[in-house]
């Protein structure tokens, strides 16, 4: 994923406030957090910024498929080991006798399920990174040695 500075370097850096943010740096934070779109910056739509706009969009492409919590699952990297299914505290709480003890999930309240050898995220609103009282939980990323899950 790109950093805020990388995005900022590609913006016009005029702090024109047309996007509604007070500075271009604030705008780059907002686009990285998927609160604003690149097209909301009107000066960058001009012809002279064409190349920079394309670069910005290509940098933001990996986060296009992210869930509301910012979770991206890379099925091509996943080995289906199920470490995330069992390590996720929400899965354990919602399915203590299935996912909690390492077996296959026995209900549909869990966040992760392995389908066709690859993990699939569901019930994303249950995730501890979602909602008002969200916490910066890393429980599903830590046990994945191949980096198939990431948050953006």
């Amino acid at each position, binding site marked *: 994923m790109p950093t805020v500075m990388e995005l900022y370097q590609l913006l016009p850096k005029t702090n024109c406030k047309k996007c509604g943010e007070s500075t271009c740096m604030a705008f780059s934070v907002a686009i990285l957090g998927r609160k604003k779109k690149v097209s909301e910056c009107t000066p960058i739509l001009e012809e002279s910024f064409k190349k920079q706009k394309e670069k910005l969009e290509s940098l933001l492409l990996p986060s296009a498929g992210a869930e509301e919590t910012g979770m991206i699952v890379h099925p091509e990297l*996943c*080995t*289906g*080991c*199920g*470490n995330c*299914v*069992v*390590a996720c*505290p929400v899965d*354990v709480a919602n399915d*203590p006798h299935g996912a*909690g*003890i*390492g*077996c*296959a*999930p026995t209900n549909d309240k869990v966040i992760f*399920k*392995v*389908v*066709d*050898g*690859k993990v699939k995220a569901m019930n994303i609103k249950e995730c501890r990174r979602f909602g008002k009282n969200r916490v910066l939980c890393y429980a599903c990323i830590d*046990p994945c*040695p*191949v980096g198939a899950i990431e948050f953006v």
Partner: protein
Amino acid sequence: MTTCTGCSLLCEDIEVILENGRIKETRHACRRGAARFRGCRNRLIPSVDKNQTDIDTAIKKAADILKNAKSPMLFGWSNSTCEAQVKGIELTKKLNAAIDDTSSFCQGLLIERALQKKFRTCSLEDVRNKADVLVYWGSDPQDSQPRHLSRFSVFPRGESRQRGYEEDRLAIAIDVRESNTAKICKGHFYRIPLRGDREFILALMDALSGKVPKYDAKRILELAGVLKKAEFGVIFAGIGLTYSIKDDIDILIPLADMLPNFHIMPMVGHYNMRGFNEALFKETGFVNRVKFGDKPVHDNKYAIVEALKAKSIDALLVVGSDPISSLPRSVTSHLASIPVICIDPCVTLTSTIAEVTIPAAASGIESGGSAVRMDGKVIEISKVIENTYLSDVEIMTRLMEGL
């Protein structure tokens, strides 16, 4: 619920969705298991001398080859059900032939000692419910048995381990490279040089008996301290460890004696390798490399590798294995000069050079039976798809009739 035969964990919690008699989707199986359920792209067809024929002719020809051979060998077995393995041993006895399986160049040495009860071992359920210190030594279950860590060892909550892996369990990896399992063990990864397992064991035994180890004293003393404090420890001994100390495998026994709370579990690859080892052990007292005659003889010269090198066999029956892709070319060149019979669900490198090919039902998908998990527990495996292929047991029975 179906049992997966992708590896020796034999996961019993797999859901298979069928559509028009074919598998549409598998749930809860890892990538390896899902691939096993998907089946192979190229199905084997019955053939004699590379010409397609019907299955009866192929079986008859195979029986003829075995009957006329002076010193045939029956090899493979690790991907067959226990029932087929027992029949296979019976067939070998009838032929006075040699029998060997893939454990001959895998975990045979360690399984033999486990069956002789030379060290303590435990079940995977014990690991889940009790284990607090897990040592992955020369093994990488994260890649070889992908659900090992999530189903049994590191991540699940068990009866005495209710608080999750961060607090209740400690995973340690000892390996020559930073495998995916070692990545999960993070701060507890001990990198050793190639073939350095023996020195590491000796250093660890020094540390356990209160002496200062010869190398890397600080870390090894720290490791010895952790192992001593374990309430229920398990060493998952992989093929890396077995290969490295194969000339002196009994060195593990004094190590196990010094760690009274520890258990050693051989990490098996193929789904029913241990099943074959147990069946042959019950019959002869040896786990592999046996020649039947007046009485069964166990000798290294009856190992597939040694027999092919010495060119001492004149026919080979391969069941559910692919020696040409798993053994070096210098060893397998002898296969070109002897009749090979290949029984397998799929086209393999071995089947392409075989004189007779007999297609079999894929066990766990197209035929059922029972298999032995890596810890020795017998698990029933079921048939998922209706089909007309003969199972390994039926092929063995018909081969016996043909003799």
